[in-house]
């Protein structure tokens, strides 16, 4: 790529290695490829970001730390992987029974979330550049559960077992390599792994005939794009602005794309009769949110009142106090209506309600 098109730098001034948590055939990987190409174009060839799939230099569990240590310059993944270094990543970027995707975005942008995120990444020598919020996970199941109560004693693979255990569900934290075999053979009865199109591609929908949408336990995962601080500080201001802007612009694009792809997959799976989806009623959420409050209090206690975790929960609760009453008051008229009522014409629905 040495200066074939007019005005390009012959050799990039900056070449970065960028390990993402995705694999080459996934939409997310291709999206990051586009971003890297755009940065190259926008900087006139001065900055080249080379994309590497999951696990190229370090495993998902190790990658944030490896990036902070300078093994590679840039990384994108779920910060819950480094909760062992800073627990506050859980409430900032993940949070069971917490906010939906849009609320999470407002919290990060305007509720102090971004500042907390940078404070947590400071511990790892990482600069927080951009983020995207994932669609809700689905729960894949071998049985047609109509309520949380029916799940009692059933075996559930989850990465967040506390809230499930509080409901009397037998939570199992199986590693990702084993979940497929475990589900196919019946060693587990249900699992949460990722959002719908992702599970669909892996063939989990081939072996799990029922789905609960959305999955109650994990909500609005935040994927973060970070840069090793030493590498970031070497960039001139103009390139810094380009990198941040190009990533931010794409993140909004991909947020919308993942939402719509999941909707299309839901439609396809429902129409083919391959997976039977069900939506649990809000009463179930209310009870579990109360359980979650206790878990959050216990975790704050454990991390200490001076911890970033305590500060994060206080910031989140403050956001609820300031924003939710307004949100309730000004909620769009369609809130709480059926799809058809909101649209004004008849739309078939793709899921069963709990009482059907």
């Amino acid at each position, binding site marked *: 790529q040495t200066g074939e098109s007019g005005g390009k730098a012959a050799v990039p001034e900056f070449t970065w290695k960028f390990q993402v948590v995705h694999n080459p055939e996934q939409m997310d990987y291709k999206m990051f490829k586009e971003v890297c190409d755009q940065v190259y174009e926008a900087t006139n060839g001065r900055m080249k970001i080379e994309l590497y799939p999951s696990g*190229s230099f370090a495993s998902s569990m190790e990658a944030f730390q490896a990036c902070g240590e300078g093994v590679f310059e840039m990384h994108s993944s779920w910060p819950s992987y480094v909760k062992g270094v800073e627990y506050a990543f859980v409430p900032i970027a993940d949070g069971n029974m917490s906010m939906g995707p849009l609320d999470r975005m407002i919290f990060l942008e305007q509720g102090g979330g971004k500042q907390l995120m940078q404070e947590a990444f400071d511990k790892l020598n990482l600069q927080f550049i951009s983020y995207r919020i994932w669609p809700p996970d689905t729960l894949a199941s071998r049985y047609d559960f109509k309520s949380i109560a029916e799940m009692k004693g059933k075996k559930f693979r989850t990465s967040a077992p506390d809230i499930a255990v509080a409901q009397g569900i037998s939570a199992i934290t199986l590693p990702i390599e084993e979940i*497929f075999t475990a589900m196919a053979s019946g060693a587990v009865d249900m699992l949460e792994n990722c959002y719908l199109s992702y599970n669909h591609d892996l063939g989990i929908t081939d072996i799990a005939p029922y789905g609960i949408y959305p999955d109650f336990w994990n909500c609005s995962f935040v994927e973060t794009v970070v840069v090793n601080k030493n590498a970031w500080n070497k960039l001139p201001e103009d390139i810094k602005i380009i990198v941040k802007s190009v990533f931010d612009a794409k993140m909004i694009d991909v947020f919308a794309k993942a939402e719509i792809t999941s909707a299309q997959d839901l439609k396809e799976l429902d129409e083919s009769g391959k997976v039977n989806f069900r939506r649990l009623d809000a009463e179930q959420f209310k009870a579990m949110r109360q359980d979650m409050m206790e878990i959050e209090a216990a975790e704050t206690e454990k991390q200490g009142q001076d911890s970033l975790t305590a500060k994060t929960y206080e910031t989140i609760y403050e956001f609820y106090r300031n924003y939710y009453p307004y949100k309730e008051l000004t909620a769009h008229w369609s809130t709480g209506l059926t799809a058809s009522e909101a649209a004004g014409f008849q739309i078939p629905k793709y899921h069963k309600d709990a009482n059907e």
Partner: protein
Amino acid sequence: MSTTTIVIIMMVVFISILLLGHPLSWILGGLGVIFGVFFWGDLNVLNIFTRAVYKVVTTSSYVCIPLFIFMGALLEKSGSADKLFDSLYIVFGRLKGGLALATVVISALMGAATGIIGASISIMAMLALPTMLKHRYEEKLACGTVMAAGSLGTLIPPSVILVIYGSLSNLSIAKLFAGGMGAGICLAAIYSIYVVVLSYIKPSYGPPISKEESQKYSAGQKAAMILVSVVPTLSLILLVLGSILLGAATPNEASALGCVGAMIIAIMYKNFNWKMFKESCFSTMKTTSMIMWIIVCATMFTSIFIGLGGDKVIADMVVGVGENKWVILSVILVLLVAMGMLLDSYGVLLIGVPLFTPIVYSLGFDPIWFGIIFTLMIQVSVLSPPVAYAVFYMKGFVPHIPIGKLYWAVIPFMAMQIICIILCCIFPDIIMFLPNRMQ
């Protein structure tokens, strides 16, 4: 210095030092460090090595490796393994190559319980190999059978390789498993035919029991032998399998249940004692350490190889080989074997899947079909000299056999793997029969 030059230097230095006889693990790790320092352009790269260690010690799918080795050690040191194969030898003794055939069949069954090469080869090296050598099976045939059949586990589901392949390429793991079943059975059948036919042509390779010795045992005695010596150990193996298929256990748990079962069998045979148990623990540690350190160091080497641009050098080789889709496919398959000469299976997947799958799909090959062909190529690469992981694992069990002999031992089995791949190209249904019938 260009990336291509660096990669060529890496390959040449690696193979030279390997031939000079420095231990494999230190070469993989040491060259990783040296090439990282000189060519990465940033000393921070040295942190990659600690991360590689932490990655391997927290890869839970590897937990079954020490467990299967422990199960093998218990069966071996309690004499159960020898009882099993000795009885098989007497009962099916008139069949030339009978023990090698039994090894292939039992390996294929074990392959359905484990998906990791190091685990299956170790267990078969402990169970079947000593008996074959005792009954004067030709060393190359005996070792080759264990190495080739011991690698079947990555093809026959469940297989960690197929799970990783599915997640790397966004394919249904269920369909890959179904496809792997067909190819695995086909390959096992080819191996079976080979060991029997070879022993009939050259009876000294897989000598049958003599007529007189066979007649020493009455039909009743033989039946009793099956009941006492074959049934318990074989049931254990089937129990381990069954526990996965019945949904009672994950592969790691199944291997632990296998250890418990091996202890119970030892107690039943009244061979269980502290000395034997202690020795089993020791030999498990020695074998596991030898194998896992190769895996740790190979992980380091792979990261450095990718970071220095090794993947791009390989990609350039596919460009400009013409338009014929079978020519392009053949070139890709050859490159996969070449990569397997330097990297471990995971490295081959990590580099090969993103590079080759888009090309292969654009040529109109079926993704599931190619996934299985790819996995068959990984089987070839673990056997192909000079960097043949199956051979290295094996060497740990037979230090008295020169590695050159082990290299010769795998050649006929590599030829059969190629035959299997050609068969799968001519008759894609060998792979696609099961996946096509899923929903």
